[in-house]
């Protein structure tokens, strides 16, 4: 069995009970507010940095998954969901209430770099202000936006003007007297290599990039609010498909399914779990194929053959997924407590089609290695460019292939098992290169691991006794979880840790639905990789992050 954790003798990795943690934090804890997934400690808004430092340094909670903020009738609240990279099942929530009239809270940015963007988002959408934050601006909405859309008194009928501002060159002032000038260049939103509508504010000195700042929000659709206005049972499930729309639909659906099932205490039949696992891994292959294809576009230029070959393979997975779910991208296949359909009839045909795909996959992968990874020019271009050291990756909360490409051994499928993964035989792929090449290599090797998983699932499904093929647990038609139950649950999406935070208020719709998007955190690392590099390397680094703007902006 390859799923055992590597041994960690580090002091910080020792698991502590909630009471021990409370003792460690001492007076900092005002009261307890436990969540379904983790103990929750309520602290004063001016002790955020102190608390998080203790938890990070002394208790080993080195992964700030997400900051979810929300407004209550009587207060604002920011929740810092902490985990350990070594063992993500050890979680703790730090709850920071802020005053209703003057919602100010201390920023966690000095402790966790990743808090930068997460707090900006909380400020933007909810309206909590963070003291000591280096750059508290709106992030998803335009700078000129009036009000905070997810706050309670938001007037959605107020007319809004979104301007098209001229961006300032951030280095211009400081270097007025310098010998040579820098050039400010907007790369995106309408640019061939930004994978959607991303805007990179780039400052160039010759061909080199002095400063790059990703500007996001062009594809913001308020998915969180859409989920908050849908019922748990039916109406939320179609939307996760639309976050990471690069055919990673089932992986996203699983994130919601996992959070909601744990929230409402629904047991999923084993048979459905196997189907879920198989479908999800098919999606992972499709998503990684597209990542490979677009990365080839970024490095090779348009009209590269790699793109078309990878898309071809992706189409084959999509054919399988279409047979299974009825759709090629927006599956809506999972239901709370199971899946909507059993395998398509005749089952043998589906199995043989799947096996055909798996049989030709090694050949395709070999071809990609010939085309891409063993190409000398490609190696010259990608090795040792876009370096992301593991400590930096952790600090930014990077997950998924981006973290694994930097040698961070973190995969929720193994570390926080769900579905049928812990019953199967597969490996977590890591590469130590920390560069663009490693990230691509991780994806290509993960495709092979996914194929292994699918193969085992097919074997299992083939032999599953007919009378035990239960695809759906008995779930009430209307779900009303307990009032004020809170949960944060994550799955390993194609891009990394895709988490959902839900707070219920006793009705059939969530009171707060927060999405922890892996791309959002991963994209934040771009300046670390890109500053000082050449323009082509920035494009390559961006491609190697494999972001989907639908998920970044939500």
């Amino acid at each position: 069995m390859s799923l055992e954790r590597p041994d960690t003798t580090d002091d910080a990795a020792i698991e502590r009970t909630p009471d021990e943690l409370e003792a460690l934090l001492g007076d900092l804890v005002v009261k307890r507010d436990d969540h379904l997934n983790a103990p929750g400690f309520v602290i004063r808004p001016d002790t955020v940095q102190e608390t998080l430092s203790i938890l990070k340094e002394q208790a080993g909670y080195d992964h700030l998954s997400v900051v979810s903020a929300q407004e209550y009738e009587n207060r604002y609240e920011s929740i810092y969901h902490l985990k350990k990279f070594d063992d993500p099942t050890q979680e703790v929530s730090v709850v920071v209430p802020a005053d209703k009239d003057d919602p100010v809270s201390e920023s966690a940015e000095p402790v966790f770099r990743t808090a930068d963007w997460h707090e900006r988002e909380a400020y933007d959408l909810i309206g909590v202000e963070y003291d000591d934050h280096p750059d508290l601006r709106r992030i998803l909405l335009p700078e000129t936006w009036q009000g905070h859309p997810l706050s309670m008194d938001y007037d959605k009928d107020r007319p809004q003007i979104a301007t098209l501002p001229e961006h300032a060159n951030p280095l211009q002032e400081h270097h007025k007297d310098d010998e040579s000038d820098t050039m400010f260049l907007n790369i995106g939103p309408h640019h061939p290599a930004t994978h959607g509508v991303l805007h990179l504010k780039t400052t160039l000195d010759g061909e080199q990039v002095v400063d790059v700042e990703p500007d996001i929000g062009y594809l913001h659709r308020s998915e969180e609010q859409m989920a908050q206005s849908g019922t748990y049972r039916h109406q939320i499930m179609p939307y996760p498909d639309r976050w990471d729309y690069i055919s990673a639909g089932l992986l996203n659906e699983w994130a919601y399914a996992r959070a909601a099932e744990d929230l409402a205490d629904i047991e999923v039949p084993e048979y459905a779990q196997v189907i879920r696992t198989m479908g999800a891994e098919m999606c992972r292959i499709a998503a990684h194929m597209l990542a490979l294809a677009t990365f080839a576009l970024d490095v090779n230029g348009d009209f590269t053959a790699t793109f078309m070959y990878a898309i071809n393979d992706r189409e084959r997975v999509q054919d399988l997924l279409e047979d299974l779910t009825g759709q090629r991208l927006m599956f809506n296949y999972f239901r709370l407590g199971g899946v909507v359909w059993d395998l398509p009839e005749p089952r043998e045909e589906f199995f043989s089609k799947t096996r055909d795909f798996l049989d030709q996959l090694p050949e395709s992968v070999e071809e990609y290695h010939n085309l891409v990874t063993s190409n000398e020019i490609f190696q010259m271009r990608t090795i040792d460019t876009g370096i992301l050291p593991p400590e930096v990756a952790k600090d930014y909360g990077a997950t998924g292939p981006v973290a694994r490409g930097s040698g961070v051994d973190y995969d929720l499928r193994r570390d926080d098992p769900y579905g049928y993964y812990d019953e199967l035989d597969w490996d977590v792929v890591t590469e130590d290169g920390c560069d663009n090449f490693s990230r691509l290599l991780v994806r290509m090797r993960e495709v092979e691991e996914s194929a292994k998983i699918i193969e085992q699932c097919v074997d299992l499904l083939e032999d599953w006794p007919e009378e035990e093929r239960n695809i759906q647990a008995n779930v009430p038609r209307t779900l009303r979880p307990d009032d004020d139950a809170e949960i944060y649950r994550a799955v390993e999406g194609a891009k990394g840790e895709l988490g959902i935070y839900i707070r219920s208020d006793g009705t059939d719709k969530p009171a707060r639905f927060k999405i922890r998007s892996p791309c959002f955190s991963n994209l934040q690392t771009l300046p670390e990789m890109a500053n000082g590099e050449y323009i082509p390397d920035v494009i390559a680094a961006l491609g190697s992050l494999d972001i989907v703007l639908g998920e970044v902006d939500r």
Partner: protein
Amino acid sequence: MGTAPAQLFPEFLVETFGLPGVLGEVVAALIAAAVVGNIVLAFTGVAGPWAKRKITAAFTDRIAVNRVGPFGLLIIPASAVQLLAKELIVPEGVDRPAWDIAPVILPASALLGFSVIPMGRLGPINFHLADPEVGFALVFAFASIASVSLVMAGYASNNKYSLLGGLRAVAQNLAYEIPLIVTAMSVVLFAGTLQMSGIVSAQTTTLVTIAGFDIPAWYAFVNPFAFVLFLTANMAEIGRNPFDIPEAPTEIVAGYQTEYSSAYFVLFYLGEFVHIFLGGAILAVTFLGGASGPGPESIGFIWFVVKIWGFFLFTQWARSALPRVRIDQLIEIGWKGMLVLSFANLVLTAVIVGVIA
């Protein structure tokens, strides 16, 4: 050495139609030039909207243009009309005369290169406009005017992507011009002349005979190392993958031609293709025996066309298979690799020529 130069195309016209005096020569030259110009344009016309798509599609497992006319061939006039009838958008702040002149220079300079290329015979006509004694040097001079056009376009567009593209074009040209010429010089060492017809005729002798087949003494066979060097430098010179960095669509959008639309864009597109064919023509003349090939001399033109299309095919092949190098890597390869190798090749060739001659 060599035989007497064949009758050139304008001379043929003068003789056939009995055009008198200098005026007659000018008229004949103009007619001949128009014919040659249109032949080259026809190539690019076929290559740009049609052959390029078909070839790329074959490499990427796709079906390409096949709707308009047989094999989609009518897409060529359709594209021409469509592109010419597009609105010309003149961006703010362009440097007007330069911005207008740049798209003229690129195709003109590339076409001009064809004036000294011996394209071989088709029946009685020898498609060769002029055969000056310095023809070989001249053709490189003409070909490198192109980068002037690119930097002009890049700078006049008032667009940052264009600026970057224009600057890249210059850097690339600087790095590969010298290896290109120095490698070409090794051919001159063999041929002992700069006259194009001389270089071609020097390649007509038989190198070896294998199983009854005469392998001609094309310099690609005589000196394959120089051929590879020249091919690489040539690809860089004409800005094709993996050296397409002045355009680099996924990095700097479209490089120097970002702001061009309508006929201006067509001219750049055209100019690039003429440039590819010129590159192919130079390669054919220097290393592939020009218009020579099996069969009578009177179908030499067909062989020549096959050769330059072969080169075109090769550029498209490289485009679908190879990643693009980075600008600093390009410079390093150019100066630290190609330049040194080309000088080594030159010295080596000089010694070999000295020994065998």
